[in-house]
């Protein structure tokens, strides 16, 4: 039997993988993918919490599931703008490596 805890552990692992990807990888496309992974980890926990919190009438709490739709939509908008910025960056510098974007310094 799969319990709420199992879902939360998987979601925690996904969030950690995403965070590690943002921190350690040097390619901006991979960083954007890792960010999406973090958002999806949150989506998984929300749906799990919603599914396992059943009301007396036997229905799950749908608030969180509605929230997940909003997160998916916003993530799509974010990626659309983000990729546009990356394309502009690639045209200007012929690179998507974060090591090469370091003109602004202390």
């Amino acid at each position: 039997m799969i319990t709420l805890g199992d879902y939360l552990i998987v979601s925690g692992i996904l969030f950690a993988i995403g965070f590690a990807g943002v921190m350690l990888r040097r390619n901006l496309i991979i960083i954007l993918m890792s960010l999406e992974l973090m958002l999806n980890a949150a989506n998984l926990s929300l749906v799990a919490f919603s599914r396992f919190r059943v009301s007396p009438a036997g229905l799950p709490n749908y608030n969180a599931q509605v929230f997940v739709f909003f997160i998916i939509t916003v993530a799509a908008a974010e990626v659309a703008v983000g990729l546009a910025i990356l394309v502009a960056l690639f045209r200007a510098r012929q690179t998507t490596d974060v090591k090469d974007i370091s003109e602004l310094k202390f």
Partner: protein
Amino acid sequence: MITAPLLEVGVLVLGMVILMFEAFATKIDKRILAFAAIAGLAIVLVATFFVAPVPSPNQATGFWNFYTVDRLSVFFKQFALLTTILVLIMMIDYAPAVRSSFPGAHDGLGEFFTVPIFTCAGLMYLVSAIDFIFIFVSLELVTISFYVLVSFTRKNPVTLEAGVKYLVLSALSTAFLVYGIAWIFGVTGQTNLQRITEALATPSTDQSATLLGMVLVLVALGFKIAAVPFQIWVPDVYQGAPTPVTAYLSVGSKAAGFVVLLRVLRPFATLPQMQRLLVLIALLTLIYGNLAALPQGNLKRLLAYSSIAHTGYLLIGVVCLDSNAVVFYLVAYLLMTHLSFAVLVIVAQQTGEQIADFDGLAKRSPFLAFAMLIGMVSLAGVPFTAGFLGKFFIFYAAILQRQIALVVIGVITVGCGFYYYLKVVRAMYWQPAAKIDNISVSTLSRIAIGALIAATIWLGVYPQPILDALKR
């Protein structure tokens, strides 16, 4: 009397109409669009004074579960509108720099003037939001439109770099926010702040899971308000972004972050760990912001570090949960920051953004030099300016709450601030000018800067109108 959501609808419709007009009227001078936007936002600003009261959050139903109209939110709607109007005025002055970034027939100015209107709508929704879903969506409306604005002059490599950094770190903070909300939902089964308060009051709720969720949300809001240790993006993004956008980020985004912070912290005030965590963040922010600003030679970067330092002072008010002190400080911060940036936009077009470029400004343009002087002394906190009273109310609240460490560090760092702000004043008044050139200032900017000077001094001498507006 009008119902409050109409204000945001009005702003959004204004933005869409201007965008449509821009798409089809290609031959016009694009600055007309900015004037239309300023006029439209001014009308909405007047309308905010005639908002009808709404049911209290306890017996709210339907839409009013997500959206509230208390005096804090109406005040900050006016704040957001005023900020956007001032930013649009700066953008008109900044137009030549944008035009030079877009070679060819399409000069990009139409979008440059329109995107802030949508940001403004996002800010207005955000200050009314009392549900985590609504907070998330309106925060993203603000953030995504800022992605576009920050990297707008994309032919400039520094701007593009700032845009990428802002994109990655903001998206990271969004992920933390969503994950935090998920955990808070998991503990309480609610997304509405009022219901979360009720759920947390019952002793059976899991304290550690709540704390995990709240800390994750706090990380995300720390990014928005530029608190240490989530301030890494601030200096680079502030320096690289187009100057009016920097001003907008520094005032609009920060103010909205603080309103959300005040609202979100209220249900969690019962957790003793929250208070200690906030005191620690406030201390680090004060020390880092002020010390890192000392060696800066670029004025935009200096203002970025100063913005981190001001977050520290505002956080003292948040620790004391004194929303009136925080709001007054934000108003003072709006006036003096916009004043400094308005002068910076004009001077930077002539010479540059370094402090050395302000050498002898008092001879080149006495009016701009005086405006910058008032902005800087107010940011430093000299008496008879709005900045002084803002700091005074914050420290007073801290003394009442016996937060001695915060007051001591706060006062020491204010001294630090005097050094780097007066460095700019020294350059303007005591350094010889490299070349004498008259700097022309458009009438609209002259009026705006004059009004900001007057308001900064007026609030420093007679703060009663703002205090009354908050008590009402």
